[in-house]
């Protein structure tokens, strides 16, 4: 651990693969910028890899004041021990007060290894970060300007705010897709600092024999309309109704974790804490009770329609339109209404079939 260091910088781990940045580090820079400005300190990105120098300007454009660059052929492919060693050395040398990682497979592999080596705290999968004060009980004083690490816990039934006031740096992994990115500004100036890499053979224990990347078949993130089903849909057969509704809206189909676990839909389609975070123009939640873990992945949708037989389902708390009813009854009515362009008309004129195409054109699911 390092001592509490109020002048310490805010750091963002600039995760890259095959010398390409994903969106997560850029999202983290957006949030990191806000935190650093509030604390009056610098925001730095930490970039490890081989042949990644060119990415530094992008990190600066997205908000970094500095980029710590650690280039080394053996860092070309991520592995926990080597990356953790380099990052721990950098933390010891520069004593940042906050270190943020994406809650990605790499971030969730790396950050705990570092936290354990540093003997400092780490909060997983935060959905928000703020700067705030913490009062100790019984007038023992207070700690000012701490990183408030906010995350759903206990299966999403509570929201916990976690702090770490003495064993720094304050570390957190942050969910993908929840922090807004800044507009890239190519005129921004920043320093690139070359860092020494000290690795011995024992820090690279893994041999990666083969690595395959699968293109996600579904792109929920860019869908304008999403129809999403939960456990309440009841069966894989019933789930077909969600597909039917999506077809007539040109929407993407998604599912809650419960629906995925029940085998109603593939994991690629999962929205929520452990799935994808989405912000479509319209999110239609069918038979989804709405645990906070699911809501964390969709509550930012511009419009939410909830269909559920349980009038007390938490999903109605975030919905704009709530329909209490059986999906087998409601969805056909919805499809009929959409085909009719919102008019009550059970005898569709044939010209209305053109409507389908028009509705579909707005989305790119």
């Amino acid at each position, binding site marked *: 651990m390092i001592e509490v260091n109020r002048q310490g910088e805010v750091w963002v781990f600039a995760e890259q693969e095959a010398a390409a940045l994903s969106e997560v580090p850029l999202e983290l820079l957006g949030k990191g910028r806000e935190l650093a400005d509030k604390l009056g300190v610098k925001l730095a990105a930490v970039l490890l890899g081989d042949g990644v120098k060119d990415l530094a300007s992008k990190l600066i454009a997205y908000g970094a004041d500095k980029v710590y660059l650690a280039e080394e052929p053996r860092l070309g492919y991520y592995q926990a021990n080597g990356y953790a060693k380099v990052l721990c050395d950098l933390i010891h040398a520069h004593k940042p007060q906050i270190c943020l990682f994406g809650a990605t497979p790499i971030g969730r592999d790396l950050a705990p290894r570092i936290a354990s080596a540093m003997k400092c705290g780490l909060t*997983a999968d935060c959905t928000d970060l703020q700067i705030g004060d913490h009062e100790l009980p019984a007038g023992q004083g207070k700690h000012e300007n701490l990183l408030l690490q906010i995350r759903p*816990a206990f299966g999403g*039934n509570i929201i*916990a*705010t976690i702090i770490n006031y003495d064993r720094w740096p304050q570390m957190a992994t942050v969910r993908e897709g929840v922090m807004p990115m800044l507009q890239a500004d190519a005129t921004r100036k920043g320093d690139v600092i070359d860092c020494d890499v000290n690795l011995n053979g024992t820090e690279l224990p*893994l041999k990666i024999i083969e690595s395959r990347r699968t293109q996600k078949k579904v792109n929920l993130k860019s869908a304008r309309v999403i129809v999403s089903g939960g456990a309440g849909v009841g069966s894989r057969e019933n789930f077909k109704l969600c597909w039917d509704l999506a077809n007539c809206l040109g929407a993407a189909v998604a599912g809650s974790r419960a629906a995925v676990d029940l085998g109603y839909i593939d994991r690629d389609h999962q929205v929520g804490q452990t799935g994808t975070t989405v912000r479509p123009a319209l999110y239609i939640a069918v038979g989804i009770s709405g645990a906070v873990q699911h809501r964390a992945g969709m509550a930012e949708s511009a419009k939410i329609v909830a269909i559920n037989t349980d009038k007390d389902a938490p999903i109605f708390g975030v919905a704009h*339109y709530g*329909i209490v009813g059986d999906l087998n009854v409601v969805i056909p009515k919805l499809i009929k209404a959409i085909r009719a362009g*919102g008019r009550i008309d059970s005898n569709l004129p044939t010209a209305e079939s053109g409507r389908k195409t028009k509705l579909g054109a707005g989305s790119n699911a």
Partner: protein
Amino acid sequence: MGYSCVVLVKQVPDTKRITGQAMNDDGTVNRAALPTIFNPEDLYALEMALDIRDRFGGTVAVVTMGPPAACEVLRESFYRGADRCVLITDRKAAASDTLATSYILSCAVRKIGRSDVVLCGRQAIDGDTAQVGPQLAEKLGIPQITCVQELHVLNGQTIRVTRNIGNGFELVECRLPVLLTVLDGAPMPRPSAGRRMMKYKKARARVEVEMDLAARMPDADQATRSAQVQTQMAVLAEKNLQIEQWTLADIGADLTWCGREGSPTKVHRIQSIVLTGKGHKSVQATDEAVAGMVEELITDHTIG
């Protein structure tokens, strides 16, 4: 001589089954009102360890940290095939965060002796942090391979596995010892074996025997009772029905790294999810009402 596998498991509240009754009036979760289960991904870790033993030879020890009730997951481990089960139970371990937990578990794994493969589920459903695995690997000074979906081969001192990292797969090789965190996409856990169940349902940890005797002999004095405990424990040991029970002192843990004091993360605030409800528009499940809603969505350009 085979491979020595140690599996770390956790008893967790079944967070999928939280209902109104499981919430306290102040909105917090009443853990006592929740059913507890074997953390789902830990079952896959146990299966992988049993598979290693079956295919390549060796032993499987299962360790859990928790209150006496956590013996339930250890008995279940016996039913499925574990050779040895250990309960770490100590009030001083309460309120441990992931860092303190991984420290305590590392002391326990060391006490078990040589371990070639340490396994745990990727994450527990009550916290979903996925931190204890990598932290434990660091504390033990061994490499970690997270998100393991398939074990291909153990060959002398080398293991080869497939990781599922969400957007792809990696085939990875590593020298032993190593820590694996196992995903629920790994081979299905075997069911409990009937004969093992008949035998191991009688397996007990000392604390369970003590609690049982306290209930059955409320009036007995201390000496009588502890003599009884000794007798019963000896019988259990003879029949190999003992769940070993260790305190923090037994595993040589330094208390400054355990429990609340050993945990750098503190809770600043807990909010239960009380939906304030900005108020949604209630739509009747009739043709007219549904069409009205669709018309509004078209009018405000949400769809269409």
